[in-house]
């Protein structure tokens, strides 16, 4: 609000409890009073929703033409000369009266109520209430808690009808799946029996409920607020980076609450981010190093992973890497994944790969992203910029599935009329219904359709330069190669030089990884790698797997990734991993890929380690640890550091390592030496703490120097800092939060679990891009859709720079292969990513059990085999690459001729997709069903 004050031209003066104060024109009394230090009690008012003035708790005395009258402070705008008394005898009596009324039907069961101790009704009853209720008659009765959905329970007796939850559903989430039923004092919040509130945003209604009416199953009875410790942090479930606090109790996480970060999440969280934290307590979690015993290393699968020690696991890994480099050169060692890692971890692993080992085969994206060189050549929008642009143009991707809270932000911007959406998507998304224009458009047709909608877009923004336009850069489907989207993005950027882009890359800290060196072809700080990369950025994982399948890769390191379960071409992933000489899993859980692992290195998870993360905007925010990791689980940076140390002990790496030390970073280079001890604190690159890495990043990466590091935390407070504008680090001040949803918010930031060990940060020098021994060889242009770039070693990718322009031109110039359905495979496969897929985040969480999507094939029903008119029929979906059996669902919103299979609900889609093909076509046929029997409605044959 102070920033508003600064920019607001119009202010009004009014009198607040006899004191002359100033407010912004249009501000509500409740807000103006709060900013001037006077808290007015309230229940229904929520700063992020339209005021409705129903609870009447905020009645204050306001002067007016007919004398002073009681007015709801949450609804009435401050006016010039107005006199407001919040605590006059009349106002106080009214407030007392309201509280007494609220308690008429409210059970007095505070001692057994989950809200006890942090209940605004309880608190305000003490501060503003009559002391005791005079009500002696019978209260209204309802059956005790009833479930609203998988997470939320409703105790209607405690409800005070403030309508916060129902308004959230209708106004914020856009899904009025709960509503008031009945009227008067029999009003209850309810849902239609056959439709539950979807598990996307339902946790928010628990957080904003001012009484104990809505509680969350995962949080019930686990803690009492006075016992809880909390730390403010950033959610890493997706790449939006919602701010939240993690609360713990006796060292165990008990609850997660959204924090109101103005530029990011407005206080909201998605249910996956809120409830999925319990994965860290999963019984399936791997908490000690393991090595595969018996049998040979080749293939790795003939033997069991058995518990081991860090020294054994490390030395085995070091030996194999050393052998690989010695035998086949550094490119025989490859790294896949890393989006789950914190920035500091990513930087350390990037240095290990590039500088110590010397490979360029690193890729954070698992075939589901976009070329980072392209992303960094585009003007990036912040979320706020997107929400205030005149036009949003979406080239694909369902934001609600990818970056759920971004959906809330964008939806709000659209429904309030601030911005208009033009959507091009293979299948309808959750934003389609709000779109000005929503066009069904296959990914391969994007370029042409873009041409068609350009006029409409320009009409909305009112210019041809793209000013006021934000393009949402996501992928509709992982069954179409990214190069169609990349080409369309480059074309859009050339056509509209002023347009901004918001990448819809969902994975936790993928943007940090791309910025800090886990991307092929790019060094930390978006500097073009001078060496011939040998791999195509954005497609590197595919190439790594292909090379592995051909026997060219000796060691694959999986950084919290599961190509076998997650890469769009399952067949290739399995072949590659099976053929790789040695597979190292750096992870917390076993998965389809770790079945190939020869070594398993257990890691600390986000809530257990300090760090920073970077969101899709380029906003860096801190993720302090809240709880302590199991003893043998190390933070990822420490594993990299230790590996580096041991590898640097090997003769072949010594020279390279010294040469690789950041120039000027003599301190760091000086510490390179023999490993000491068996713990993460050992000097590797010289890192003994995360703080040190952060300092080095700050010195090496443009923009990061703006982040003064104090005890390893980014300087900025709640909102983090957006770095991609290089230097425009801004901090925004505290805003009035919703004190109801967030009791005691201002006392946060104090109780992190473990502070980093170790000394003060040494400022490191800038990473030197050149002079690193690397793989020689031609740039791989055989991968379709990979642009052939002029040599740009050392260039920093800044939008608008010559390098960025060259990149855009190169992407525009990529020839696009024609694709056509064959007779045998007449349908187009569309495979979008969904929020609740079958990945670890869902599968390992007890809280999220039951919301994970089952795989199915969804078709329009029109023009398909008659038999599919029947829901749930089993079908065989086949592509040239494979065949799967799935139940059929009919959805008329899917365009005819398209078969939709959610990408990450199991591996059905990735069995069908062949990444070598630009587009996947399939056939959909009933599984050995007698068609006549089907149409006759007879029993079907499940065989």
């Amino acid at each position, binding site marked *: 609000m102070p920033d508003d004050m600064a920019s607001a031209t119009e202010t009004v003066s009014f009198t607040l409890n006899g004191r002359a104060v100033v407010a912004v024109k249009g501000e509500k009394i409740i807000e103006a009073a709060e900013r001037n230090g006077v808290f007015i009690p309230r229940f229904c008012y929520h700063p992020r929703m339209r005021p409705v003035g129903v609870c009447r708790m905020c009645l204050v005395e306001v002067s007016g033409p007919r004398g002073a009258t009681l007015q709801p402070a949450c609804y009435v705008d401050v006016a010039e000369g107005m006199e407001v008394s919040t605590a006059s005898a009349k106002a106080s009596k009214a407030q007392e009266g309201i509280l007494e009324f609220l308690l008429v039907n409210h059970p007095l069961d505070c001692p057994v109520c989950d809200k006890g101790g942090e209940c605004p009704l309880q608190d305000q009853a003490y501060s503003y209430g009559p002391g005791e209720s005079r009500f002696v008659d019978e209260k209204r009765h309802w059956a005790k808690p009833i479930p609203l959905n998988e997470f939320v329970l409703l105790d209607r007796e405690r409800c005070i009808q403030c309508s916060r939850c129902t308004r959230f559903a209708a106004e914020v989430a856009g*899904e*009025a799946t709960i509503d008031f039923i009945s009227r008067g004092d029999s009003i209850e919040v309810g849902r239609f029996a056959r439709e539950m509130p979807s598990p996307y945003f339902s946790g928010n209604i628990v957080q904003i409920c001012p009484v104990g009416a809505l509680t969350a199953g995962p949080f019930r009875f686990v803690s009492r607020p006075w016992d809880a410790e909390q730390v403010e942090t950033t959610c890493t479930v997706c790449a939006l980076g919602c701010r939240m606090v993690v609360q713990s109790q006796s060292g165990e996480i008990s609850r997660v609450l959204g924090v109101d970060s103005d530029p990011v999440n407005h206080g909201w969280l998605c249910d996956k981010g809120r409830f999925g934290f319990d994965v860290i307590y999963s019984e399936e979690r791997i908490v000690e190093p393991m090595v595969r015993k018996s049998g040979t290393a080749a293939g790795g699968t003939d033997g069991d992973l058995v518990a081991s020690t860090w020294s054994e696991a490390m030395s085995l890994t070091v030996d194999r890497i050393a052998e690989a480099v010695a035998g086949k050169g550094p490119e025989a060692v490859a790294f896949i994944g890393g989006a789950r890692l914190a920035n500091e971890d990513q930087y350390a692993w990037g240095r290990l790969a590039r500088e110590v080992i010397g490979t360029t085969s690193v890729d954070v994206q698992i075939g589901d992203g976009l070329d980072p060189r392209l992303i960094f050549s585009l003007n990036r929008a912040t979320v706020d910029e997107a929400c205030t642009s005149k036009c949003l143009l979406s080239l694909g991707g369902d934001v609600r599935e990818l970056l759920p809270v971004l959906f809330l932000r964008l939806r709000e911007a659209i429904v309030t009329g601030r911005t208009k959406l033009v959507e091009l998507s293979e299948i309808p998304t959750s934003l389609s219904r709000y779109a000005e224009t929503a066009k069904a458009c296959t990914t391969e047709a994007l370029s042409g359709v873009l041409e068609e909608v350009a006029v409409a877009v320009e009409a909305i923004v009112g210019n041809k330069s793209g000013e006021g336009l934000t393009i949402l850069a996501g992928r509709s489907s992982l069954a179409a190669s990214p190069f169609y989207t990349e080409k369309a993005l480059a074309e859009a950027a050339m056509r509209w030089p002023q347009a901004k882009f918001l990448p819809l890359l969902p994975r936790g800290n993928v943007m940090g990884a791309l910025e800090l060196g886990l991307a092929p072809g790019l060094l930390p700080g978006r500097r073009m790698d001078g060496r011939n990369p040998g791999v195509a950025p954005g497609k590197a994982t595919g190439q790594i797997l292909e090379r592995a399948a051909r026997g060219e890769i000796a060691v694959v390191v999986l950084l919290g990734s599961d190509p076998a379960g997650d890469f769009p071409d399952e067949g290739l992933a399995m072949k590659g991993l099976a053929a790789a000489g040695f597979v190292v899993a750096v992870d917390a859980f076993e998965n389809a890929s770790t079945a190939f692992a020869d070594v398993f290195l257990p890691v600390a998870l986000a809530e257990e380690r300090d760090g920073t993360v970077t969101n899709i905007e380029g906003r860096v925010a801190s993720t302090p640890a809240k709880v302590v990791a199991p003893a043998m689980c190390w933070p990822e940076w420490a594993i990299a550091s230790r590996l580096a140390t041991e590898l640097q002990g090997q003769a072949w790496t010594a020279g390279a390592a010294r040469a690789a030390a950041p120039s000027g970073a003599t301190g760091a280079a000086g510490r390179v030496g023999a490993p000491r001890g068996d713990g993460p604190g050992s000097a590797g690159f010289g890192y003994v703490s995360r703080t040190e890495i952060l300092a080095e990043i700050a010195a090496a990466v443009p923009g990061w120097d703006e982040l003064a590091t104090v005890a390893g935390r980014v300087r900025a407070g709640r909102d983090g800092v957006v770095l991609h504008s290089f230097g425009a680090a801004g901090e925004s001040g505290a805003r009035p939060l919703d004190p109801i949803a967030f009791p005691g918010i201002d006392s946060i930031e104090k109780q992190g679990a473990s502070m980093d060990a170790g000394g003060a940060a040494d400022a490191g020098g800038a990473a030197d891009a050149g002079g690193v021994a690397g793989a020689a060889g031609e740039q791989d242009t055989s991968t379709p859709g990979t642009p052939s770039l002029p040599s740009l070693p050392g260039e920093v990718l800044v939008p608008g720079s010559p390098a960025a322009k060259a990149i855009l031109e190169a992407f525009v110039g990529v020839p696009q292969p024609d694709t056509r359905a064959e007779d045998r495979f007449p349908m187009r496969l569309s495979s979008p990513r969904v929020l609740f897929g079958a990945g670890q985040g869902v599968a390992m969480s007890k809280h999220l059990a039951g919301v994970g999507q089952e795989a199915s094939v969804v078709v329009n029903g029109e023009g398909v085999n008659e038999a599919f008119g029947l829901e749930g029929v089993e079908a065989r979906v086949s592509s040239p690459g494979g065949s799967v059996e799935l139940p059929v669902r009919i959805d008329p919103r899917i365009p005819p001729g398209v078969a939709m299979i959610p990408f990450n609900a199991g591996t059905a889609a990735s069995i069908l997709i062949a990444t070598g093909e630009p587009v996947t076509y399939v056939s959909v046929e009933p599984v050995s069903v007698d068609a006549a029997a089907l149409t006759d409605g007879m029993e079907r044959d499940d065989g």
Partner: protein
Amino acid sequence: MPHLSSESLTRAREIVDLYPQRRSALIPLCHLAQEQDGWLRPEAIEEIAGLLDVTPAEVLGTASFYEMFKLEPAGRYVISVCTNVACMLAGAYDLLAHAEERLGVRAGGTTPDGRFTIEDVECVAHCDHAPCVQVNSRYFGPLDAGGFDRLVDSLERGELEGDVPPHGTLVRVRRTKGLMA
């Protein structure tokens, strides 16, 4: 399978077309569904939601605000006994007690044979005929105990079929003229 009959659906579409905004047809469509089924079935709620592009919860939430919509099966004849002031001063509570006794159910209940529901309602604007009742929104009154019995007898014998359509049927006149094209 649509739950509304094709005739109901045709009428539903006609009604929707009368309004500048679809959702305005919500109450008329609930009346229509109640006319078809005698009460507001969940299937009808879902279908109305689909026709109006709102959620079933919104249809349920809105319908449940209004006294006339029955979310559970109601009798073929819903007898609404007014007990508000004018009727009370004319003995409405005695009439209600008699009605409960005659039909063997308490206000709010339905006879086991599904023929009658009794309700204790607010003023139905027929106070010059106090105490009065409505049967399926058709007026009767003033009624004493004997008059009530005769009314029930007639209903039971089907003598009032013409005056009192089954519960749910509100307006037997169909809007014949569309809007100006």
